[in-house]
């Protein structure tokens, strides 16, 4: 962990832990939805979208990034474990963000997995709901 601490500053860990999963989920939603629209539109005759490959990749990359973000948040939480959420900055503020991030990242993980798995296993791809 010391090596990681040297490479990644506490500030970086805090912000990546807080925003990493949220941004990952956003990207998976926009790209995953966009690819699905491309696959099921008239232009697919020309584009030939491999929707399953796309959704699988987005799911895989998404999960990895969220796990990393959660690791960063947990590291920050551990390093500030002696501090209260409304203690003075920077430690109090880092602790506050870490508590928030640790829980928030779980939500994004579930959202990515639920949406990603459903998009991958769904056959035939363009059946109306």
């Amino acid at each position, binding site marked *: 962990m010391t090596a990681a601490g040297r490479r990644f500053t506490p500030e970086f860990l805090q912000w990546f832990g807080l925003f990493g999963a*949220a941004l990952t*989920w*956003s990207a*998976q*939603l926009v790209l*995953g*939805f966009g690819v*699905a*629209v491309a*696959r*099921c539109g008239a232009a697919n005759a020309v584009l030939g979208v491999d*929707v399953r490959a796309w959704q699988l990749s987005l799911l895989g990359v998404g999960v990895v990034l969220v796990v990393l973000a959660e690791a960063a948040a947990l590291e920050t939480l551990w390093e500030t474990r002696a501090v209260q*959420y*409304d*203690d*003075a*900055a*920077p430690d*109090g*503020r880092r*602790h*506050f*963000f870490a*508590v*928030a*991030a640790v*829980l*928030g990242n779980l*939500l*994004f993980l*579930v*959202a990515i997995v*639920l*949406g990603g798995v*459903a*998009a991958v296993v*769904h056959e035939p*791809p*363009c*059946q*109306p*709901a």
Partner: protein
Amino acid sequence: MAATVTEPGLERVRRLETIWDEPHGVLGWLTTTDHKRIGLLYFFTTLVFFGAGGVEALLMRTQLSQANEKVLSPETYDQLMTMHGVTMIFLFVIPMTIGAFGNYLVPLMIGARDMAFPRMNALSYWLFLFSGVFIYVGLFMHAAPNAGWFNYVPLALKPYNPGRNIDFYALGLIFNSVSSTAAAINFIVTIFKLRAPGMSMNRMPLFIFAMLAVSLSLIFALPSLTTDLVFLELQRNAGFHFFDVAHGGSPLLWQHLFWLFGHPEVYIIILPAMGIATSIIPTFAKRKMVAFPLVALAELLVAFIGFGVWAHHMFATGLPTIQLVFFAAASMMVVIPSSIQIYAWTITVNLGRPDFRAPLMFIGGFIAFFVLGGLSGIMFAAIPFDQATTDTYFVVAHFHFIIFGAAVFPILGGMYYWFPKVTGRMYHEGVAKASFWLAFVGTALTFFPMHMLGLLGMTRRIYTYPNGMGWGAYNLSETIGAFILTAGLLMIFANLAYSRFRGPAAGPDPFGGGTLEWSTTSPPPHYNFPVIPVVRSAYPNWDREDREADRARLRRGELVFDEGHETPAATVVDAVPDEVLEMPSESPWPLVLSVCTAGLFVMLLVRHYVVAGVFALLALLVLAAWHWKEPEEE
């Protein structure tokens, strides 16, 4: 406070009074940049629109009270129904929570003297007022928007809607969105930069987190609506093709862009209510909010995840399942932050020593309605259930439980809660409690039967229904409920109006609140705080030594900033003291610019494009004049 202020302290306070005083009379109000006055302007204006929206609702409820009623024609019903939605959302709930509550309270809660951009704050108000008048001119011309508040195409296109109705809608809402965007920018920069020393982000009040979440949502949601409305006007009036399949367009484009805005919009509606709840509960439970960081996170998460659920309004449009799964997943997740908050609120009350005065009762009602409305909402996340109940009264029940039960009840509770701070007087507690019960029973009776009606097959947006469907009794109960609710609301306003003039004096802190607005006088002076408070916890008004230290600073002249019209700025994340800002004072430019903007939109409506261009040019000149005067430098 006055009794313990010494001579040098009194001298400084007098100086502050002189510097921050605004002209009296009408001119003062027309040129004000004081966030508290602007908050009051918003408050009374939104109440007028609330009344209008309420009358529209009562007319509709009367029409629906029995089968085959003839109180309203179908055309009139369509206009009233659309105006009810547009009024309540754009002209009441948002300006009330953000413009009135937000404007008044945010600088006070963060220990600042004003908003970051005081003149732009006034501009937001005048733009809002004129945009509301613009839309209502349509109603008075019997050409009000009539395609529902979400205005689906092709019904809103020229072939089906050749009159000016939809143009009032599109131009009016673009006009309104300029006001909201300006307000959102102001709140974000104020919250980022003007917090008192020591109020690092982890010590910001939960109400401020809610306002930050709302403002960020507005910034990222409004452009989608603007684009949609611009496309609509271009298609209606310039022959463009965005929404018609024959020329390569798609009606679904309207829906995607609308709901990309529309869903975040409903979180924009509920978040300030959550902020108000999280302000009232610790005060009356007499303890800090349980799981404070999680509640703060939940407020931001609800807003953020809310951007990824929009297509759940389109589950019944025939879109492929593979496209919809992302939104079903996110719709299930978005419930969790709200649930975290509900648990935190109820556990806090249970662990505290709750004092069930009127504000807390309204929050109790809010929690009850929010739970029920949230449950019906999460049911829609399941695509099959949604497809069965789309466009029925089940949906109407859900969103009224949320929008009325969950968004308006905290507004009513908040009115009681902050009434002593704003007026310096106390409301009548007994009448307040009675008004709560009337409003609660009325709300429940009006909206609960709608669940049953929806499941019995009554569709939305119909102006009447036939006999023999089994819907009559429910509809009649709902109409009765609506009038009971109206009585409750009138009782609230009568209580507040009477107490404004005859209520007993309330001191600076009648309820023992933990946030900074309770540390200054009631009402606050123009400059809010004689000494900028130093903050060392999330509930600074409960830190008595720190507040005593503030008073000592007044004598020493520290953190008083009485050299000019000043407020201090700090760093964004940790509120480290940074610089002293010279703030603008009263100005005519916000009102003048709003008039030019109104002229521009009126000319666009009547299609006199050259004159519209003249107004645009005038607006640019006013902007130049506005920015000509600079703050005095050291």
